[in-house]
C-alpha cells in the first residue's frame, strides 16, 4: 500500500511538473524560432557561391534532457503494447529544436549570416536511470558563415 502511494505521488508530480515545463518550453521555442528565422540553417554540405568570401567556424548547440517519472511509466506501458511512444517524442522534439536554437544563438553572437552543414548527434548519458532511459544529450552543430569586414 505504501509503495503504491509513493508510486502514485511520483507519477502525479512527474505529470504536473513535466506538463508545466513542456508547455512553457514549447511557447519559448516557438517565439525564439520566429526571432531567429532570418538566420538560415541549411543541411547542405557546400555553401553556394554567394558565401565564397565568408569566413567559417564551427557552431554548436547542446541540450541535455531528462525523463520525468510519468514519461518513464507511460513509455514503459508503450513498451508492453507497442506503438508510438508519444511521451518521448515530444521530449526529443523539444531537445532537437532547442539544440538548433542554441546553435543559432551561438552563430548570431559571431555575426554569422547562415549555418551550413547542419548535423545532429544524440547520445544517452550512461546508466543514470538503471534500465530506463535517463538523460539524453542532443547536439546540433554546423558551419557558421561569417561575413569578413573591411574587404
Amino acid at each position, binding site marked *: 500500500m505504501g509503495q503504491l502511494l509513493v508510486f502514485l505521488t511520483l507519477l502525479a508530480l512527474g505529470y504536473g511538473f513535466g506538463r508545466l515545463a513542456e508547455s512553457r518550453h514549447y511557447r519559448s521555442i516557438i517565439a525564439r524560432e520566429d526571432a531567429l528565422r532570418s538566420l*538560415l540553417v541549411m543541411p547542405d554540405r557546400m555553401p553556394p557561391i554567394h558565401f565564397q568570401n565568408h569566413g567559417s567556424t564551427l557552431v554548436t548547440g547542446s541540450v541535455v534532457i531528462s525523463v520525468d517519472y510519468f514519461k518513464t511509466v507511460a513509455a514503459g*506501458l508503450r513498451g508492453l503494447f507497442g506503438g508510438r511512444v*508519444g*511521451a518521448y*517524442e515530444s521530449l*526529443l522534439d523539444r531537445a532537437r529544436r532547442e539544440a538548433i536554437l542554441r546553435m543559432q544563438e551561438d552563430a548570431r553572437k559571431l555575426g554569422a549570416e547562415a549555418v551550413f552543414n547542419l548535423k545532429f548527434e544524440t547520445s544517452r548519458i550512461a546508466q543514470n536511470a538503471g534500465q530506463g532511459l535517463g538523460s539524453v544529450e542532443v547536439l546540433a552543430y554546423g558551419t557558421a558563415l561569417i561575413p569578413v569586414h573591411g574587404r
Partner: protein
Amino acid sequence: MSVPRPRISTGSGLPPGNPRLPEHINNRNEHPLKDFLLLAGALLALMFVLTLLLGWGAQWLGPKIPYSWESRWFAATPDAIATALPPQTDNGSALTDSAKDRQQALQQLLERLLSQQSAPLKVRLHWLADEDTPNAFATLGGHIFVTRGLLTQVSSENALAMVLAHEYAHVEQRHPITLALEQLAISLLGSVIGGEGAASLIGQHTSLLTLLSFSRDMERSADQRALEILQRHYGHSLGADEFFRNMLAERDENRWALMFQTHPLTSERLQQISQAGSAAASVTTSQLTPLPTLLQLNDGAGSKEPDQITQP
C-alpha cells in the same frame, strides 16, 4: 502537402529565412493522460484476466499432481521451516527425546484418526517445541507442523484431533500445492509485465505468506472434511469447537489478526461445527476422549504459566 515553400530570392539562390514547419509531425502533441489511462486500464484488465485464468489453472492442475511427486519435491521443507523460525534455544535442530516422543504421539494420533479412511495419504507431523504461539499448519510435501502453544490450548483429544484432521484435510485436498502453483504463476506474470523488480517484490511477499494464505473456501472445505473424519473416528464431532472457542475467548489480536482474516470468521466456523454436532446433541462431555498423557500440556484451568508448561 500544404507546407509553404520558401520563396527563392533571386540573387543568392537562398531562401529568405528558415521555414516554419508544421507542429505535430515529430510530436503528436496529444494529451498524455489519454494515452496513459487507456494503456494502464488495458494493462490492469489484462493482468486481472490472466491472474484469474492462472488461478483457475492452478486449481485445476494442483490436485492432478501425484501426491508422491509432491512429497519427493518437498522432502526438504521441514529443514527450511526450521531455519526460518527463530533459533532453537539450546538443542539446535536435533530434537530432544521428549520432543521426539511428542512428535511420535501426534503422528500416532493422526494415524488412528485416519485408520478408518480408505486410502490415507502419508503425512509427516513435526513438533515445534520452542514456538509458544498456538498454531498448526500444513505445508508443501505433506508436512504438518504443530506448535507447543497449541497443546497448551487444548483439553481433550477431540479438540486436538480436530486441528490435526483440519490440517490433514488441507493436504488431502492438495491446497498447499495449489497455492504454490498460483504463486508461481503470479510471479511469472509479474516478471513478464513488470520486470525483475516487480517479480522479486511479489516473491518476497508471497514466500512468507505461503503458510497462511489458504482461502476461506479452502478453510471451509477443510473444516468440513475434518468434521467427517472426526465423525467417522469418534462417532460424534463434540469437542471439535474447543480450540476455536479458546482462541475466541483469549484472542491475541496481533498474532491472530492475520489468521482470522484468512480463516473463515471464527464464530462462523463455530456455528458450522455446532451445526454438525447438533445431530448428536445427546452426547455429553463425558464422551470426550482425554489427551494421551504425553500430549497434556494444558493444566485444565487454562492458565499458561511458562514454568508450568515447559516441563519435559
